[in-house]
């Protein structure tokens, strides 16, 4: 909906303290009445200089810091970092550690997508899905707390293994949860996704064309929402994803052009179903073993550099580590998916209305901790 605007312009500051900017983000809107001519995002309010910290503490101590980047999906953040250092040092982990890591990463993906769906309902105006999603997410957090003792920031993945093994009876509780959870997703769909008002609010809004998405380096559910079938778990399988069969949901544009807010939202909901399937297969592949057998006593990676990507719920997370053979990483650069999606926000939100700005921002599902690092 490209509405050109005329007449003088009023700048409206949305943020950094605003109920629906998903964190401390400031949007400088140039508005004429309801139409927004230009939305300039300002970031940096949550910058905690993670990369400078990482250069001053040793490899194992960087783990808890990576949790703090994307606090909604901390498990996937640690996993990315740990896999990169293991690949640099050439450590092989046994099958039990790989399966537990897949289970934890996928459970964390379900929890993160539940936050995304819940807050998106809240941004569009209906509060009930928010409460329902957080009620289901609570069970996942209990499973995490029972295994590693923490609910949100786990430090569960260590370089070469895990902090603790699964408690007995964990698999039974997990399967019970999955059986209870899958019909709940259809419940949420009937309440929100198929609601005509919701479709009207999100279907023809915030169109991100595939070429624009690739050129802006958008990855993850936002890219798949635009119809590009690309997922690191299928494209460059790590951790044993190659012998788990699951599909990649892609936006098909059922209600209006491909790449609208509704498509991105629906890709996340379908991904939750796929994650449930992955967790079931990973639980089946669990084999007994010691989870801490290949944890090195002293972590001193060889001189060199490494770049590795993993599929975190918000997109493709990349760690670029340069090591000079010492105890501390020489340089650690993080490629954050939300950072690149945010750079495309200005392009996508040109000519939208104020209510659409919130809808577009919610459909990108950004977390400011990861953008500002």
């Amino acid at each position, binding site marked *: 909906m490209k509405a050109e605007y005329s007449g003088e312009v009023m700048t409206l500051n949305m943020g950094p303290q605003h109920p629906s900017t998903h964190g401390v983000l400031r949007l400088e809107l140039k508005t004429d009445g309801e139409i927004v001519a230009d939305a300039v995002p300002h970031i940096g309010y949550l910058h905690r200089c993670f990369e400078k910290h990482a250069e001053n503490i040793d490899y194992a101590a960087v*783990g*808890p810091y990576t949790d703090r980047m994307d606090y909604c999906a901390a498990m996937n953040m640690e996993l990315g970092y740990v896999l990169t250092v293991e690949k640099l040092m050439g450590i092989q982990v046994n099958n039990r550690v790989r399966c537990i890591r897949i289970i934890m990463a996928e459970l964390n993906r379900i929890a993160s997508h539940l936050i995304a769906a819940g807050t998106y309902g809240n941004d569009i105006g209906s509060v009930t899905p928010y409460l329902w999603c957080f009620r289901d997410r609570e069970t996942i957090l209990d499973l995490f707390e029972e295994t590693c003792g923490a609910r949100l*920031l786990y430090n569960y993945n260590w370089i070469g293994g895990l*902090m603790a093994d699964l408690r007995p009876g964990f698999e039974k509780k997990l399967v019970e949860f999955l059986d209870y959870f899958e019909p709940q997703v259809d419940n949420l769909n009937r*309440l929100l996704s*198929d609601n005509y008002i919701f479709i009207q609010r999100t279907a023809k809004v915030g169109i991100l064309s595939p070429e624009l998405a690739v050129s802006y380096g958008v990855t993850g559910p936002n890219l798949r929402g635009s119809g590009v079938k690309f997922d690191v778990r299928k494209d460059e399988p790590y951790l044993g994803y190659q012998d788990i069969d699951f599909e990649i949901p892609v936006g098909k544009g059922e209600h209006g052009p491909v790449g609208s807010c509704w498509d991105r939202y629906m890709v996340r909901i379908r991904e939750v179903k796929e994650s449930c399937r992955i967790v079931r297969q990973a639980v089946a592949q669990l084999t007994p073993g010691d989870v801490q057998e290949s944890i090195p006593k002293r972590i001193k990676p060889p001189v060199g550099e490494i770049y590795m990507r993993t599929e975190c719920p918000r997109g493709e997370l990349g760690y670029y580590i340069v090591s000079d053979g010492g105890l501390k990483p020489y340089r650690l650069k993080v490629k954050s998916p939300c950072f690149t999606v945010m750079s495309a926000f200005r392009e996508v939100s040109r000519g939208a209305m104020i209510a659409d700005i919130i809808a577009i921002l919610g459909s990108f599902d950004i977390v400011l901790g990861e953008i500002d690092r």
Partner: protein
Amino acid sequence: MLTYFRNLGLGLVTVLNSMGVAWRHLFTRSVTLQYPTVKWQMPEGSRMRLFNKIEDCIGCGQCARVCPTDCITIQTEKRGKDEPEIFASDGTVIKLRTYVFDIDMTRCCYCALCTFPCPTLCLVMTGAYEYSVYDKDEHIYHFAKDKPLTIKAPKVLSTDKA
């Protein structure tokens, strides 16, 4: 003209549909846990406040070295030859007297990296989560009981990182 009425019908049907789902949830059991009267039952591995059994602590400083946020400060001094031999509960001999063992819970990031290298496993994370205080200094827990015999410049064991 047809799409006008189709949209109208679609709007009505989906609105009634989502109202039906909401109606059914009116009668499902609510999941609220009324906190002050009913306490949350913590799983036994949960990582909340740190606790150090000072009798078993041999003052090695491993925990202070591995902590990412430097919230543990330890000061020890050699025990004299004449003093009686004391042993930790698991038999390791204690050669250093720790007269300062402070954990600053405001800086702690609850990552439990310190509980693993402890040789006598005296540093553990308990399940206590209700310890809010009015004054920040009360969050610095002092576990050491002995007094320093020879007063000398405090040698801070934890390497002072950036």
